[in-house]
């Protein structure tokens, strides 16, 4: 019996120890990390990055993502995944009684820097060229931590020319610290013309060091390299500002398209336009609440839903209030302003005055990299495309459908349209609904950029009117050109005037412009304009 018991414990101990055996150094470090405070953790993490173990890379990757935990009762290191918790060393799934059974092995910024550089040093030998690229770019930040032989080995093995170029930059940065002037100057020549921010930083530091020791020739070399980079950068920054301008223009366009119909085509001064945008954004929120597992798809569902919600509210407003006020712009203005307050308060009562969290799908995040100094953010890129699609669709409806024809007929000559058998009342309601629905769609897009709260519509109402008036009332092309040019002008002014002044300058510009051309950029000509 006793023998059996001893045997049992030996077997169990052996079973427990065996999967850990190859990981002893790593295992020991993990145990140290559990107890260490942030100050000690730094030294421990530095050691961690040098452990020669096949699992070190995985350990660091999970740690830097903040998914590394340990079980409180037996100090077993576990990985917290999205739906399961598994032990790190043996890979067994663990069932937890409570969330408090495990505690995070926390990391702060300094540890993340160490870990990322450690990961990069290992990942540079990965089979996946993308991984190697990522590692090489990370190594630019911590070039001095890499030892020479590893770098040479990586350079020798590297077949991908892009990765090789970045590795040469790493080499260049290291050479800036070399002992002989010749080597340092060679380093500068490697770095000249590179757009990576870290390279520029390294060169700037090198220049400062050269200046401190007054090494004239090197100062000059560094200056030349920096100047070359600067001139490339300034080109890029013009392109970048243009892109920012187009992105801002797309937001203005989205916000204004709906108004181009309700105000531009129908002539209703609709102060509740911003609230239609807000309703669209809240619809996105509700849709996401209803399908929490499909955030990626939620926007596709939210677009038609928001169109319907805002559109129906628009029809109701037209039938209930506005149709009684046609031809009385002041009263329409007051009535729609009242409606906007009612809608805001309704949302405040239903959803609370706090902002709502609308999640951004993964495919909206990140950047499209053209070169290291020019990256286009995906969300803005999609919004530019989306706004143009909405505009095209609307133009199609207006020009190619029966409803569009009736709508144009009613705005041009109401009695004639009516006598041709068009039910002008319903056309009015549907037109207003269309404009409101499109504002709702804009709300879906804006929910990805800004806060979703009861007041969000207020931020867009002025801008929308500005775009429509500037572009020319009643003209969709005018709205497009107006929105894009205002966006670009604003963004080109911003770098040297600041956000506040740029906005003021744009407003002044519009006021002066309207003085000169009261009908905006693209004025409608002929009878429709006269009847305005």
């Amino acid at each position, binding site marked *: 019996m006793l023998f059996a018991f001893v045997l049992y414990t030996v077997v169990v101990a052996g079973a427990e120890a065996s999967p850990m055996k190859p990981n002893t150094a790593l295992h020991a470090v993990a145990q140290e990390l559990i107890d260490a405070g942030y100050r000690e953790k730094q030294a421990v993490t530095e050691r961690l990055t040098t452990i020669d173990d096949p699992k070190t890379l995985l350990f660091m990757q999970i740690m830097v993502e903040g998914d590394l935990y340990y079980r409180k009762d037996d100090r077993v290191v576990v990985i917290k995944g999205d739906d399961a918790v598994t032990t790190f060393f043996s890979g067994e799934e663990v069932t937890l009684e409570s969330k408090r059974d495990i505690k995070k092995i926390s990391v702060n*910024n300094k540890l993340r820097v160490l870990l990322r550089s450690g990961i990069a040093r290992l990942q540079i030998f990965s089979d996946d060229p993308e991984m190697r690229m990522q590692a090489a770019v990370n190594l630019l930040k911590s070039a001095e931590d890499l030892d020479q032989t590893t770098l040479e080995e990586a350079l020798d093995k590297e077949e991908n020319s892009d990765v090789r170029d970045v590795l040469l930059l790493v080499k260049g940065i290291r050479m800036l610290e070399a002992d002989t002037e010749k080597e340092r100057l060679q380093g500068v020549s490697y770095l000249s013309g590179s757009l990576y*921010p870290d390279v520029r930083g390294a060169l700037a530091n090198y220049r400062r060091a050269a200046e401190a020791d007054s090494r004239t020739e090197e100062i000059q070399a560094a200056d030349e390299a920096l100047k070359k980079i600067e001139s490339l950068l300034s080109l890029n*920054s013009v392109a970048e500002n243009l892109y920012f301008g187009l992105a801002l223009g797309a937001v203005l366009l989205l916000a204004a398209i709906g108004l181009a119909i309700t105000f531009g085509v129908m002539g209703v001064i609709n102060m509740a336009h911003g609230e239609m945008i807000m309703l669209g954004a809240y619809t996105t929120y509700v849709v996401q609440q209803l399908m929490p597992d499909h955030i990626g798809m939620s926007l596709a569902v939210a677009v038609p839903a928001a169109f319907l919600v805002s559109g129906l509210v628009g029809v109701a407003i037209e039938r209930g209030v506005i149709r009684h006020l046609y031809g009385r712009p002041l009263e329409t203005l007051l009535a729609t302003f009242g409606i906007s307050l009612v809608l805001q308060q309704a949302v405040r009562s239903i959803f609370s005055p706090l902002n709502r*969290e609308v999640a951004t799908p993964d495919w909206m995040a990140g*950047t499209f990299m053209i070169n290291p100094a020019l990256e286009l953010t995906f969300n803005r890129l999609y919004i530019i495309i989306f706004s143009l699609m909405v505009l095209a669709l609307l133009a199609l409806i207006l020009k190619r459908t029966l409803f569009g024809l009736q709508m144009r007929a009613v705005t041009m000559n109401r009695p004639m349209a009516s006598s041709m058998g068009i039910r002008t009342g319903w056309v009015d309601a549907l037109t207003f609904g269309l404009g409101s629905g499109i504002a709702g769609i804009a709300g879906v897009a804006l929910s990805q950029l800004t806060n979703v709260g009861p007041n969000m519509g207020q*931020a867009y109402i002025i801008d929308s009117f500005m775009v429509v008036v500037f572009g020319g009332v009643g003209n969709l092309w005018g709205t497009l050109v107006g929105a894009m040019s205002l966006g670009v002008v604003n*963004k080109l002014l911003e770098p040297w005037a600041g*956000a506040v002044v740029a906005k003021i300058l744009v407003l002044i510009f519009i006021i002066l412009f309207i003085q000169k051309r009261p009908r905006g950029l693209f004025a409608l000509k002929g009878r429709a304009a006269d009847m305005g």
Partner: protein
Amino acid sequence: MKKVSLKTLIKASQIIGMTAMAAGVSIANAADDTIKVGVLHSLSGTMAISETTLKDTVLMMIEEQNKKGGLLGKKLEPVVVDPASNWPLFAEKTRELLEKEDVDVIFGCWTSVSRKSVLPVVEELNGLMFYPVQYEGEESSYNVFYTGAAPNQQAIPAVDYLINDLGVERFVLAGTDYVYPRTTNKILESYLKSKGVSEKDIMVNYTPFGHSDWQTIVSDIKKFGAAGKKTAVVSTINGDANVPFYKELANQGVASEEIPVVAFSVGEEELSGFDTEPLVGHLAAWNYFQSAESEANDEFIAAWHNYIGDEDRVTNDPMEATYIGFSMWAEAVEKAGSADVDKVRSAMYGIEVPNLTGGTAVMNENHHLSKPVLIGEIQEDGQFEIVWATDEEVEGDAWTDYLPESANLISDWTAPINCGNYNTSTKTCGGSAVAGE
């Protein structure tokens, strides 16, 4: 109220007596039986987001105090008014609270401009107000106790942390365009220069309230950060403009390891509005975080969840400041044996109450608190991990030492100085009027 018959009134007061009525109900009771507490927080308009929480905190504290039997044997009666994020209305509502409702104390205000609007009224009518939000300093009123952080209890320690612990040499001071960020950044600029940071290494940027298009600014920050020196952003960006700012940071790939952002106006409440995954590692400086480990904090959080009926609601620094202010006032009333404004004020000095992070907060003669300063890193769950704390409590300084115009000023509301802006070099008192509107 005139038409209510005596019978119903008696009945009503009986019900109140029997059930220790929930807070928020105000019935014209004889003034002698209750101590009236004014609550002056915006419940509508742009500031409602932040201030409604503080109203609820005060009401919760009153309810708890009443459960313990009130103060001096009297029940506390809340009088809630809504100044609607409208600065002049703050002054009117204060007058209403002090003259018509005759409240004994006011808890209120959030923005500095609302406080500046209230100031002349509380001073004229000799009211007593507790102000619970971090602010730019350069003020000390006889009638106001400041339980939020002064610049030396938030901004300066945060910059020290950046310089000493993270080795930051280049600073972006980004803020919303109004009095708190402008004054704070002025103080920080002069502090940074005193630390040997050159003018070239400081970039200052202001944006309007509710700014939503951060593309250019974030891109500028990125470029500014590529000069070979460790760079950090010190953010006094206010309110919900933070959400698009952080979103843009994440989108343009500004990682906290490279360019950390330390914010003075972003707490748990602000973070509960969005997905914090891309923000992990960015920093905030406060005197309190919900994640602080102490028994008092656990109790406070449990009481808050119980009161508000929602386990997901977070606690934040201005709530702790409200908690401290209320506890101090309650203790001062007990100590003075009266709710009379002047007696309570004299009793306030030196009062110690436990704060929620495990230490004690002390009220100083300059109407500011001594409390600890913490730095936290944002986590995935919208909470903060405390990565740094001052070794001891920091005494709030009403007049900063880093601006030439206020370096010589101190505030001491006890004899013999008895002055809110006493000039130590000329030995004169500038009066209680506030400098630098």
